[in-house]
């Protein structure tokens, strides 16, 4: 595929992102949304689609959606209505999904994504509210499908972008940005692997310079950020190759296969067709008072850009560090919690960016699962700041803290890493080192002052790292000067 003349074509990509909202209760029923419960234990007759039940709208579904709308510069509809999207599937017991169709609650917004070559604005067509379906399990029973309805009715928002994206990299950056925003707003945990953030893509290609759109296909089942990028790249290549060889793109839905790294056509049965949307008669129109929207607006949290700016201006971090630390809301929270115990923003930033991020990467975990809490980490930095330990000791203690929940000072003691600053400890060692190296002492006296590093190294080694290098340097300089004068 590498032979494809990519520069003759450009891709047009739009994303539909579903975000599961972090509400306590379901969209229309007062029952828990918690993930991971035993099957069919978090249900009410409404979730099961029993006759005679009526949905009642959860205020936080509205509040969280408006939050997202305001954070992405959307207009907020004064009145929007729910609609029924009709189709048959066993994980949807009512026979329809409650969604929004002609009147989404938020529309006409935009977000800014950051790319290697600058920033780009991506339009948001609409954000609407809907409910999740249950879960079907196909691989545990040879002849049946098993259905768990705990997820049925969990609130979702669907965020639809304008077809403004041009490359898989832009789609990736857009999706990351969406995740960052929902995490900052605390409306969704943004976990793609667990399905709380899901993404479908509409992809088409056209000759560069052309303004009309080509025929698009829809990609589904991309359950990680990497897979979104890969699947879109695969689909762009496939479409270009097809057109180059005289074929035509057919409008269809394709499933990404993360094992084979390719797309496949959906089976006919999986393809839904005629949803026959109509206004949901059981839920009155959602009419938003100005007060409600104002309240949501006033309670919007600090967003990544302003937090980054604050980290630069108030804490004196450079812009790269500030960006890295604010990329993930929870990492930024963690960092700021360290500062509650320690007044040293730069030292804390250094430790988080080098050691903490290294461990997160190595172990592929999120900061929420990082074993060391901010307070002991602050204590560790303070040990170094107070010159009770040196840098290499700090790293050793940090590694030990990952496995052992213990105060860093105690660990430092157990590991014999506490610096000993009494002159009585280091004096004899210095004398010993100077006695053992008369030639170096001579050359130092003749003006080769950089030998001080050699002497410090020797003393540190003989003290098994427990001497305080700063003190060693002072004492050594004093001693050598005395010898010089004598």
């Amino acid at each position, binding site marked *: 595929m590498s032979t494809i003349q990519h520069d003759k074509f450009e891709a047009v990509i739009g994303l539909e992102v579903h975000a599961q909202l972090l*509400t*306590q*209760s379901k969209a229309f029923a*007062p*029952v*828990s*949304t918690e993930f991971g419960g*035993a*099957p*069919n*234990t*978090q*249900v*009410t*007759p409404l979730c*099961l689609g*029993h006759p005679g039940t009526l949905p*009642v*709208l*959860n*205020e*936080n*579904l*509205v509040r969280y959606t408006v939050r997202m709308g305001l954070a992405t510069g959307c207009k907020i509809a004064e009145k929007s*209505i729910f609609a029924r999207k*009709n189709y*048959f*599937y*066993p994980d949807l017991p009512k026979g329809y999904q409650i969604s929004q169709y002609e009147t989404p609650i938020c529309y006409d917004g935009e977000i800014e994504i950051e790319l290697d070559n600058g920033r780009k604005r991506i339009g948001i067509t609409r954000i609407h509210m809907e409910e999740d379906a249950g879960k*079907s*399990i*196909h691989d545990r*029973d040879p*002849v*049946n*499908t*098993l*259905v*768990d*309805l705990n997820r049925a009715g969990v609130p979702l928002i669907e965020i639809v972008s304008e077809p403004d994206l041009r490359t898989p990299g832009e789609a990736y950056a857009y999706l990351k940005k969406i995740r960052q925003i929902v995490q900052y707003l605390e409306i969704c945990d943004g976990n793609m692997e667990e399905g709380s953030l899901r993404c479908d893509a509409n992809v088409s290609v056209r000759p560069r310079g052309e303004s009309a759109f080509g025929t698009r296909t829809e990609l589904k089942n991309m359950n990680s950020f990497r897979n979104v990028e890969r699947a879109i790249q695969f689909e762009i290549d496939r479409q270009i190759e097809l057109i180059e060889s005289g074929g035509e793109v057919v409008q269809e839905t394709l499933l990404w296969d993360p094992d084979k790294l390719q797309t496949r056509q959906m*089976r006919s*049965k*999986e393809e839904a067709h*005629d949803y*026959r949307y109509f*206004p949901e*008669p059981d839920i*009155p*129109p959602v*009419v938003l008072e100005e007060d409600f929207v104002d309240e949501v607006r006033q309670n919007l949290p600090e967003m990544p850009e302003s937090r980054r700016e604050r980290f630069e201006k108030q804490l004196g971090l450079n812009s790269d560090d500030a960006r890295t630390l604010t990329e993930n809301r929870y990492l930024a929270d963690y960092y700021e919690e360290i500062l509650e115990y320690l007044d040293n923003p730069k030292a804390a930033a250094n430790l988080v960016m080098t050691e903490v991020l290294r461990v997160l990467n190595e172990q592929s975990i999120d900061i929420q699962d990082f074993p060391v809490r901010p307070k002991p980490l602050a204590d560790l930095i303070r040990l170094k700041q107070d010159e009770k330990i040196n840098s290499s000791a700090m790293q050793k203690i940090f590694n030990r803290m990952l496995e052992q929940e213990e105060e860093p000072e105690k660990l430092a003691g157990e590991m014999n890493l506490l610096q000993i600053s009494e002159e009585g400890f280091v004096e004899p060692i210095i004398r010993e080192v100077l006695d053992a190296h008369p030639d170096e002492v001579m050359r130092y006296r003749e003006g080769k002052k950089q030998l001080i590093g050699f002497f410090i190294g020797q003393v540190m080694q003989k003290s098994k790292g427990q001497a305080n290098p700063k003190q060693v340097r002072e004492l050594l300089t004093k001693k050598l000067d005395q010898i010089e004068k004598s």
Partner: protein
Amino acid sequence: MAVTSDDVKYIADLARLQLPDDEVESLKQDLNKILGYMEKLDELDTTDVEPLEHVTDPEVPFRKDEAGDPIPHEDALKNAPDADADYFRVPRVIE
């Protein structure tokens, strides 16, 4: 805008109904009668009339976001035609 037999079969298919041919024919006539009756409304001038989507009171308040008790697990599965101890069981839906 007469309903054809194909329309009836299509709608029946969407509703997962199997209709014998004679019922298709009688339903076709029923549906056409209903639509013909509704067409009567077209004689009214509805310019400047807002569509009425709901007859309920739009002032219905939202529900507080609080989780109450679910129904007991056994009750949830009780009315299902088929279930095991944990799950609803339905005929396999993918090939």
